[in-house]
């Protein structure tokens, strides 16, 4: 069974090549990845949102703090929201020292995730290029490189010739309408199989006793003692959650949703600095692998990577109109294709196979809102915009600490909700704009 099995406290469900062979020979069903439990009437903590953030928080609550009487609720299936729709880019090359420290911690956790969670998340460290097409952008790349280096993160600015070596399919000549002047090159960045991260955290948390409840929608948060109606609002405290499958009493509710953050927080009487916008993505048919690196262009608002199966995955900036409708648009694919062909004219014959979108909660300073809210027991891990997936491990770790200790951990102090009262916003706008 091995140490992992013992630590996880459950039977011989460990994943490995040997186990694959054994089951292949013997036949038989692998055990369920997470239990299908009955919903209890009370828990020590309820996490709203069964995506990577909620699941990572549950995992770390159990693993680091021994808090296991936890329910993760999702109104659909686990990972159905942003966690299942993103383009899975992980990197640490942010602009501010606090941002770099934060995302670098996350990147380190991604590096060991496959063994920590005993699931192959296919973390592929393949380098990350952020292209600059004008002076101002190139200056920002230098800024990021310098701050990264001071934090011990590997980033540097490279010129067109070196870019061509890293990604030969890019047009680094002066022909394009917006020629490439240089790029921020970040070798430790890469991509990961996003669904596997969801499943990995869910399985590991489940092994420790956390319950996962799908198709369980939170309809209201029950509060007492607050300034607003029904005891909600600042000064009050959480006493429970009303769901589509009944009421749960709990002293702690953590909002780990994306796309629904404002609506859930309104249930506790908390008004967030968020507007919700769709973010679209698309994928092509597979061809032989030719792009070894993740390529991002801030000015052209596009990012490109290629999966091991050979499909090109594309993304861009959020849609300009705030809406909860994620049907997608044609103009997104048109602009995207135009910019991709600017960068890689050779792929014009490749066909777009599928487009989709998810919801992003955008904040004024392109940084999340994490921690306490003024309603006792109601914490948030929201406002993740277009950069939430890469932060899942460290967010889970830090939010778990906040829940367990009742204090804001230093690493996430800059992201407190109160900064929107004091006006001390975080300066990440340059780095996070596109490029995930």
């Amino acid at each position, binding site marked *: 069974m091995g140490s992992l099995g013992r630590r996880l406290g459950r039977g011989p469900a460990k*994943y490995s*090549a040997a186990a694959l062979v054994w089951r292949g020979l013997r036949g038989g069903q692998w055990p369920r990845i997470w239990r299908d439990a009955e919903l209890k009437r009370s828990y020590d903590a309820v996490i709203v949102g069964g995506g990577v953030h909620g699941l990572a928080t549950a995992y770390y609550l159990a693993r680091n703090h021994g808090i296991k009487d936890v329910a993760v609720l999702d109104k659909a*299936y686990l990972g159905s929201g942003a966690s299942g729709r993103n383009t899975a880019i992980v990197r640490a090359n942010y602009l501010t020292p606090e941002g770099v420290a934060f995302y670098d911690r996350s990147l380190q956790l991604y590096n060991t995730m496959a063994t920590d969670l005993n699931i192959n998340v296919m973390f592929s460290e393949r380098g990350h290029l952020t292209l600059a097409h004008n002076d101002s952008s190139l200056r920002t790349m230098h800024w990021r490189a310098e701050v990264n280096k001071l934090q011990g993160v590997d980033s540097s600015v490279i010129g067109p010739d070196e870019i061509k070596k890293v990604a030969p399919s890019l047009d680094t000549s002066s022909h394009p309408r917006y020629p490439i002047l240089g790029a921020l090159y970040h070798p430790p960045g890469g991509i990961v*199989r996003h*669904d596997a991260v969801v499943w990995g955290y869910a399985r590991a948390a489940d092994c420790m006793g956390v319950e996962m409840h799908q198709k369980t929608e939170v309809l209201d948060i029950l509060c007492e003692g607050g300034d607003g109606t029904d005891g909600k609002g600042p000064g009050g405290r959480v006493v429970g959650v009303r769901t589509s499958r009944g009421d749960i009493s709990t002293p702690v509710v953590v909002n780990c949703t994306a796309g629904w953050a404002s609506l859930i927080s309104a249930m506790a009487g908390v008004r967030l600095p968020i507007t919700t916008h769709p973010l679209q993505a698309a994928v092509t048919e*597979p061809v032989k692998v030719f792009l070894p690196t993740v390529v991002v262009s801030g000015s052209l608002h596009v990012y490109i990577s290629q999966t091991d199966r050979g499909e090109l995955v594309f993304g861009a900036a959020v849609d300009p109109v705030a809406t909860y409708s994620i049907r997608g648009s044609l103009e997104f694919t048109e602009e995207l294709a135009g910019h991709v062909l600017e960068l890689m004219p050779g792929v014009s*014959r490749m*066909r777009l196979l*599928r487009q989709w979108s998810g919801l992003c909660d955008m904040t004024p300073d392109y940084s999340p809102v994490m921690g306490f809210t003024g309603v006792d027991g109601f914490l948030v891990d929201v406002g993740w915009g277009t950069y939430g997936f890469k932060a899942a491990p460290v967010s889970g770790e830090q939010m778990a600490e906040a829940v367990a200790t009742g204090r804001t951990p230093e690493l996430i102090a800059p992201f407190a909700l109160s900064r929107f009262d004091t006006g001390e916003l975080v300066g990440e706008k340059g780095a996070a704009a596109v490029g995930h």
Partner: protein
Amino acid sequence: MTMGRLGNAQPTEVIDRGAKLSFRWNGKRFGGFEGDTIASALAAAGEQVFSRSMKYHRPRGILTADYWDPNLLVQVGDDPNVRAGHRRLEAGMEVSAQNVWPSLRRDIKAANGLVGRFLTAGFYYKTFMRPARLWPAYERVLATFAPGGKIDLDTPHRYHDKRYMHPDVVVAGAGPAGIEAALAASADGARVLLVEHEHAVGGHLRYDSRDTAVAALAELRAALDASDVEVLTDSTVTGRYEDNWLGIVQRSHPVAVERLIKARAKTLVVAPGLIERPYVFAGNDRPGVITSTAARRLINLWGVKPGERAVVFTANADGDAAAADLDRAGVEIAAVIDGRQGHRVSSTQGSPRAVEAVVSGGNRIEADLLVVAAGWTAPTSLLNMAGDRPVYDPPAARFFAADPPGNVLATGGLAGDGTLDELRAHGAATGRLAAQRAAAVAHRLQALTARAQPVGGEEPPWAPDDRIPLGRDPHPELYRSDTHGMVDFSEDVGSKDLMAAAGEGYDSVELAKRYTTATMGPSQGKLETVNTVAAIAEARGETIAAVGTTVWRPPYAPLTLGALAGRGFEPVRVSSIQPWHEANGVHTILAGQWIRPDHYGDPAAEVRNVRSNVGLIDVTPLGKLDLRGPDVAKLLNLLYTNKWSKLPVGKVRYGMMCAEDGVVLDDGVTGRLGDEHYLMTTTSSGAGGVWEWVENWLQTERPDWRVHVTPVTTAYTSINVAGPKARELVSRVTDGVDLSPEAFAYMEVRTATVAGVAGCFMWRIGFTGELSFEIHVPAGCGLHVWEALMDAGDDLGVGPFGLEGQRIMRLEKGHFIVGQDTDGLTLGPSTGLGPLIKLDKDDFAGKPELAWAVGRPLPMIVAIQPDDPNIVPAEASQIVAGDTNQILGRITSSRMSPTLGRSICLGQVEPELAAGGTKLTVLLTTGERVGATVMDHHAHFDPTGERLRG
């Protein structure tokens, strides 16, 4: 099994037996006819195996013989993933199989099949974790198994075009119902576009050999030709977006490779017909197993005999018709197995490359062909995209539209079943309804447009849907037999994989899809989604209706990036002086959409020339807003931090604008040209944004103020004449203005005639630190005035200078640049212009935050000089605390000054370091740390500004 060409011409065939075409397949020469698809020509020549599957590399043959056939993806020249079941044969084509090595015949990766029991779907999640450092190597191995063709990165981006259309009614699908809908809508006066995926209209009638079908098709085609309906073939409606915005890809076009059409349809009729669904059983992917429509297409469209001896598994009338066609084509019918009677096919037997026998009810039947008619899938994608959630009907064994929005109407197979006449009648009724509703939409749109022609008459009522509904024929629910087989042929996912995934907890369709990758391949779920749902339902012991289905996403059919990108048309902005720049050795720089002169070969020389003689710079992109009205001063007071009420006519003032959070937004000078006439300038990059900012305030917060705003950025060519000899030069070409220093002081504005051009504005401002006149010339005459100045100043040593030279001189004078020296968090006072922030004014943009910032230590913009005058730190070099990694600021602007012969900088530093004389440590991008000093003033040169006030 041997396929081959039928000797006799078939009545419905589309091939021209007189027009032979030759091509190559895997290097070998083959022949076909005009009208063949690549696949039909190869089948006629006896080919059986066309590809190898993704994971197990099993040999695959024809399955559906159309666009959706997952086994027929081939490489044609430099074009990967071509659908051989749809692409028409052309002479000289070089066609090859994809993802096989060394050859289609002997593919070494078929060894995967041997370890298939270990390589179940999703196996890679359970392994390859240790040792972690080997993952890149594992990845490279997995990448060699990646499916798909080859892309040649040197492929030129050939001509693609786009088209906008505004039809009243778009009909997607030209089967009998769709054609009738188009004809009826057109007869009712609507402008109609009919889009057909195949190469010819007719839908299933095209490969129906019965006399009634042939006659009906001829009738429909003739009616279409005689009508005003615009017909596009080999084209697909790829997506229905908000408010019936449609994407349509037109694949066969005489000039463009592929064309994207964007149409705002008032109503959309969805008539795609039905797609035949494969049946799941052991050996269902062996070459020799084909659908009934594949058999009928092969025989009736291309005259191909699909085999010698066939078993027909049929559960509907189309399967029966296929049996009749096979018989007519001389195929021996070994057995007909009737799914309506409860009989099933359990498996096929034979070699990996060919069917040799079919097992049913325990009996083994020798055959080289199995034709399967197990049921239909309704391609409801366009309805899904319109927000409809189709509902499964068990007796009919397929999904139907539930409640699409009123401007999207389904007809044909999507709406139900019936005789040919019933389908046609439903189509016609749909067309009439579509036309009526389109008329109502048109009326409403026009009524909403206040400035359009007044709309005539009453709005037509929203016609109720009183079409006689089509019936629903009962059909046995045939998804999986008593054995396991392939569900997703492209992804090599079988029913066993899906049921195992469900058992493991991936028991919703979305989870199972992600875990196994079923439905995520090139056939986009058309052939596999319903079977996937059925497998999950079976594993959970629930009905298909309870399990639901996946969300169909656009595009309905794949389309090239080239078509989506179109011609790659991107406008460029240049000033009227551009031809002169180009003729005089300019090095340009991109600034937004503008192409601007950066320098003409030697920026340091340009600086020296300006400071000794006189230089001209083209600053046309400078934002310019013409402001008129009695309340302009109020507006300036509102938007700038300083005071504007007492600016006399003829005077110019500098202003800084902040946003409502106190962050610096823009800056520039504004001059008063008349009592109620001002000209505001902004930064070049801020031109558009500031104009919108101004309009926003005037329209939404101060609508009672009387101010007219006209953006004149491009209406004027702007030339800055700078240097000690500037006055001399300008006076040689200017009429009507006394240019003497007493008459025309620093920071004043005049109207003048320059080089014979009336209506020029001229003001004395000085960001370069030299005596300078900025002349704004009506743009049509810009080049003329520039050339006149160049000619007139020849003996004065006049020369052009560009942005680089200007930047150096601005930096020598310590002028910060918004967006370079300031950033998204820089508050007004940080610029050092605190005295310009007049907090005793009434409300102005940013006032509250600026007031609360008083007394708060803020990062400051300061002038910095490195101790070593030869070191020019790169912009964005960090300012650090000694040897530590603590960041205290950064260098924001940095140049070597030709005037001072040393390096000069601006930077942002923490408040405690802002005082003149403070010593700093700058971390160069090389890693070296050097010393630098904060200067007393921002200006490194001529801090009192003597030179520009002269």
